[in-house]
């Protein structure tokens, strides 16, 4: 077994061991031992991932270890194992690092939870990390699907962590249901792929129509998992989970799994121009749509949720335009700065005991580290030159330029402006100006467990942009940066957005939703897409289900009841034959004898 394979296996199974150790309730009851076990597993996993990354940077030849897994008779239908290449190595490093940071942050953030719940939280985290790793190192699309579903389950468990709160329970079910609906696409895509190519490999060569069908089905799963329009409805509700969970799952890793699927299955997607065009259009549209919705949110987590949705749109659009490097690099930078933003927001929420930016204000003076971290994340997200987000967004814009009449390109540029604007709003309202209440006045920095991860992620958000060249090398591509219309336009829009935000929200103005944007607020809060789904459920699914239930009750059961009823009736009808009179019985005997005689005579 070669070193890369060994490292991949260690990275994969370290959190699995931790999760297994945390299965018995006794292990979780004390709370802190569970946290120790989980974090130890994550540290080992991250160490292995880092070593693997170094190994792949030196020698990026892909390696695979696959053992036969599913059999049909004597033939092997599918295999399980690990596949190591640049893509897997970089994704593994990102996932394990963000997971480790989030778990360490949780030590402080979830400190007030009762011990058994604290233990349960970390058990779920270990399970999640293992699930995500299964997905990342999968050697074929079937194992990727297994990891996909596992991640969905852990997301459900973690969103519904405060399960006694009805809104949290509903949000967990909603997330699970919407993504499960999308996963039908994944399943049918897998089946079609198998029927067309006899396996689950992502480099299968298919006929054009088959490739389109398969990739469209996979894209349905991506739309669900990565919260693109119209299946974006679960992501804002998922903010019911604890903030570190939002940072890990719903910003950096799980929602990125959809993008990762497209990156992995790029050979398949490259065979279908139709799907790629659809991705480009839908991604750009979602980016703009989500940015508009983010403008009118007052809950800091909801702002970041819609922002995530929007940035995922960027990645999907880049992949649709054919730039795997663009999409994947943006995924990586986004993972870091979005996790940073969520954790910093969590620190602020922890200080003022509220999610609303209206309850904050002036936090920069009282929590300088948190404020600095949040501002760095915001600048990176807005694509301000020098920060990591600038470089990755530039790649995306460069890829999208010129395609589909440059309409998506224009949409993404508009989104860039809006992104800077709403992030600016949050920065100026929450961190600058005057404190709005008692809690904001008495806010203070959190403990070291919460500050450490903020620092690490902030540093990465600052410098990762300059590592684009080695990143590209991992994926077998070259990177060069050129100063052209695209980057200049993007930088201008980003700075412009911040400036506009300062004009509207800076200088002590407390209005969180200005009058011109109120109409967006009304539309956003109407929950139109949710209403459409509800209508569809009531008018179509329930009606159909009622019809089936009627059929089952009256036709299927009716048939059986009819059988029983007719048996009883037949018995009742036959009963009068037994008269009890000897004369009748003798008659029967004679008739029988006559019949026998008749038969004998006529033979």
């Amino acid at each position, binding site marked *: 077994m070669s070193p890369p394979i060994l490292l991949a296996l260690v990275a994969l199974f370290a959190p699995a061991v931790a999760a297994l150790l945390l299965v018995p309730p006794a292990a979780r009851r004390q709370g802190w031992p569970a946290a120790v076990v989980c974090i130890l597993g994550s540290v080992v996993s991250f160490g292995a991932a880092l070593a693997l990354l170094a190994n792949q940077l030196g020698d990026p030849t892909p390696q695979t270890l696959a053992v036969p897994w599913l059999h049909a008779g004597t033939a092997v239908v599918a295999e399980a194992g690990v596949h190591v290449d640049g893509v897997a190595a970089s994704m593994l490093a990102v996932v394990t690092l963000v997971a480790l940071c989030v778990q360490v942050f949780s030590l402080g953030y979830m400190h007030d939870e009762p011990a058994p719940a604290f233990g349960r939280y970390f058990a779920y985290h270990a399970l999640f990390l293992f699930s995500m790793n299964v997905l990342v190192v999968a050697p074929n699309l079937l194992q990727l699907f297994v990891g996909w579903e596992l991640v969905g389950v852990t997301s459900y468990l973690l969103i519904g962590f405060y399960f006694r709160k009805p809104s949290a329970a509903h949000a967990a079910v909603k997330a699970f249901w919407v993504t499960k609906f999308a996963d039908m696409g994944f399943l049918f895509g897998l089946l079609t792929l198998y029927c067309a190519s006899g396996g689950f490999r992502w480099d299968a060569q298919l006929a054009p129509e088959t490739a389109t069908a398969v990739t469209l089905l996979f894209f349905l799963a991506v739309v669900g998992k990565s919260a693109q329009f119209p299946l974006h409805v679960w992501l804002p509700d998922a903010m019911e989970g604890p903030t570190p969970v939002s940072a890990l799952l719903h910003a950096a890793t799980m929602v990125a799994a959809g993008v990762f699927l497209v990156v992995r299955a790029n050979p398949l997607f490259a065979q279908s121009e139709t799907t790629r065009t659809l991705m480009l259009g839908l991604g750009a549209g979602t980016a703009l749509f989500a940015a508009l919705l983010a403008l009118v949110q007052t809950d800091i987590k909801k702002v970041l949720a819609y922002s995530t949705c929007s940035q995922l749109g960027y990645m999907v659009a880049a992949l649709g335009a054919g730039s795997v490097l663009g999409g994947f690099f943006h995924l990586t930078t986004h993972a870091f700065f979005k996790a940073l933003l969520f954790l910093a927001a969590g620190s602020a929420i922890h200080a003022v005991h509220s999610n609303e930016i209206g309850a904050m204000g002036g936090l920069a003076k009282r929590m300088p580290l948190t404020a600095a971290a949040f501002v760095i994340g915001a600048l990176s997200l807005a694509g301000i030159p020098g920060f990591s987000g600038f470089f990755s967004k530039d790649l995306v814009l460069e890829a999208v330029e010129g395609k589909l009449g440059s309409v998506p390109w224009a949409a993404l540029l508009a989104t860039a402006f809006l992104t800077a604007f709403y992030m600016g709003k949050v920065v100026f309202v929450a961190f600058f100006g005057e404190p709005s209440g008692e809690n904001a006045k008495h806010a203070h920095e959190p403990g070291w467990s919460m500050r450490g991860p903020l620092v690490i992620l902030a540093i990465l958000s600052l410098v990762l942009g300059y590592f684009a060249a080695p990143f590209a090398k991992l994926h077998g591509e070259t990177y060069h940066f050129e100063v052209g219309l695209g980057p200049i336009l993007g930088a201008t829009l980003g700075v412009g957005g911040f400036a506009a935000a300062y004009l509207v929200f800076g200088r002590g103005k407390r209005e969180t939703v200005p009058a011109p944007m109120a109409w967006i607020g009304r539309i956003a809060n109407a929950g139109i897409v949710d209403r459409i789904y509800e209508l569809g459920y009531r008018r179509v699914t329930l009606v159909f289900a009622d019809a089936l239930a009627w059929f089952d009750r009256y036709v299927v059961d009716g048939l059986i009841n009819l059988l029983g009823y007719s048996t009883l009736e037949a018995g009742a009808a036959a009963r009068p034959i037994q008269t009890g*009179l*000897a*004369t009748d*019985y003798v008659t029967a005997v*004679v008739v029988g004898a006559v019949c026998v005689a008749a038969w004998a005579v006529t033979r």
Partner: protein
Amino acid sequence: MTLSTCLLLATALFAVGIYGLLTRRQAMAVLLCIELMANAANLCFVAFSRFRGGVTGQVFAAFSIALTVAEVAVGLAIVILLYRSRGDTRLDLASEMKE
């Protein structure tokens, strides 16, 4: 007088006996009809013995007479029992067998 004529006569007597067996309401009348049927069978035996030769037919007829007498005796005892438990011997009222 041929064998088939005799047999047809016996069959006719037997059929009349069947009609009475299935039709009559009183137990004694049914016993009478049984007698009629047995008599017809005896006639068959004797006819075969006469037309085909051999003494077996008459032997059978003799035995049959004796058996019929025994059967009448027992049947009469049953009818008396039936009468004693009910007061009359109407067969269409005795429907305990359906229970």
